[in-house]
């Protein structure tokens, strides 16, 4: 039997744990909602404005970089399996060095352009 059957069973057990715990809470915990309790918490004063506030998303450059590098990292794992192959070893090392090197240049460029600053 595939080990992934066990993983599926673990997911089911985890969800059962959540459901069982929430069931226990429903039995044991009091329930007395009031308007003040259900109000959005804003350090004790009445909430200002509507529910979702606008904020500047500062990390979109990081998100781009992450996607690029994450794809890069995914290719490293299959390489780990073939690097010991006598026909591929040294050649694949050079190829991966070029592959990662191009991305590294990109990272250095982003750093020099000041894109890796939060503010």
């Amino acid at each position, binding site marked *: *039997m595939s*080990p*992934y*059957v*066990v*993983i599926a*069973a*673990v*997911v089911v*057990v*985890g*969800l059962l*744990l*959540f459901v069982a*715990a*929430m069931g*226990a*809470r429903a039995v*044991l*915990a*009091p*329930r*007395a909602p009031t308007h003040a*309790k*259900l*109000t*959005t*918490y*804003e*350090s004790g004063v009445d*909430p200002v404005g509507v529910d*979702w506030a606008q*904020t500047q998303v*500062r*990390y979109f450059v*990081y998100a781009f*970089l*992450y996607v690029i*590098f*994450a794809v890069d*990292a995914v290719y*490293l*794992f299959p390489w*780990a*399996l073939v*690097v*010991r192959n006598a026909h591929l*070893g*040294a050649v694949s*090392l050079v190829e*991966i*060095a070029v592959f*990662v090197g191009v991305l*590294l240049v990109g*990272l250095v460029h982003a*750093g020099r352009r000041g894109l*890796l*600053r*939060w*503010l």
Partner: protein
Amino acid sequence: MNEVVITQPLEVVLRAVGVLAAFLVLPLLVGQTEHKVMAHMQGRLGPMYAGGFHGWAQLVADGVKFVQKEDITPAAADRSVFRFAPAVALVPYLVALAVIPLSPSVVAAPTNASAVFVLAATAVGILGTLMAGWASANKYSLLGAMRSAAQLLAYELPLVLAVASVCLAAGTLSLRVIALDWQPWWLLWQLPGAIVFLVAAVAELQRPPFDMPVADSEIVFGPYTEYTGLRFAFFLLSEYAGIVVMSLLFAVLYLGGWQGPWGEQVGWIWTLLKGFAVAVLIIWLRVAWPRLREDQLQRLAWLVLVPMALAQLAVTAVGVVMFE
């Protein structure tokens, strides 16, 4: 060492329940250790009353308290997402725990590509935090979720690269085979990668000094601000389960897991002990260091850890190609 083969449906159930038992015990052990270690480092005693002997039952008592607390869903919240987020945060760590081998035979789900699987599973847990932050409809939660997203993007990368380096060194994606191949001199060979992994893991768990997303002096408790009672406790439990997963992973990847005196017989004890030592180190980091500012966090990840992880990768690759 024999491969583990699963044949009976009953065995599947027993293995899943075994993982659950470990999942409910180990995080509490780490939590209690944190209470006591942190207290003694700060010249306090920590919990002393619950259970009698040095407050050993403190976290059990906390659990009993949490289950009796009122569960509040704010009127403005996105109700179903808000209520389900704790499960999304918690279950992935349970799944990750299932594939980490404590010894060649003591592993719940002996998958082949377990190193990649663990990374994938732990990355899902982060979605729980983002769901909580967005669904709360609270400004503190939203800011916290933004910071979480940026931090997790930044630190996922060095983490993955560090693991890739170990996979390269062992020539496999299986945690079991990695630990079987491990040699003591890897401690030196993989040292930069190990440091990157540890730092990135602490950041991934949003533990101090990388707890900007839940910085209490600025944004109350970040994405978890609106949570009460048991749902809040589940987020805390997932943090400690995360420490367990990352510590055991560190022990298997970098410290040889079950290798040690009498490793053939009691290997799983070695893995647990090594993992526990790493967990104490993670607790120590919390006590020893102040919180990093958000821009410092990002600079550390992109300008120190990512280049360091890539350098480690180069060292590993050259070592493998030259000497094998």
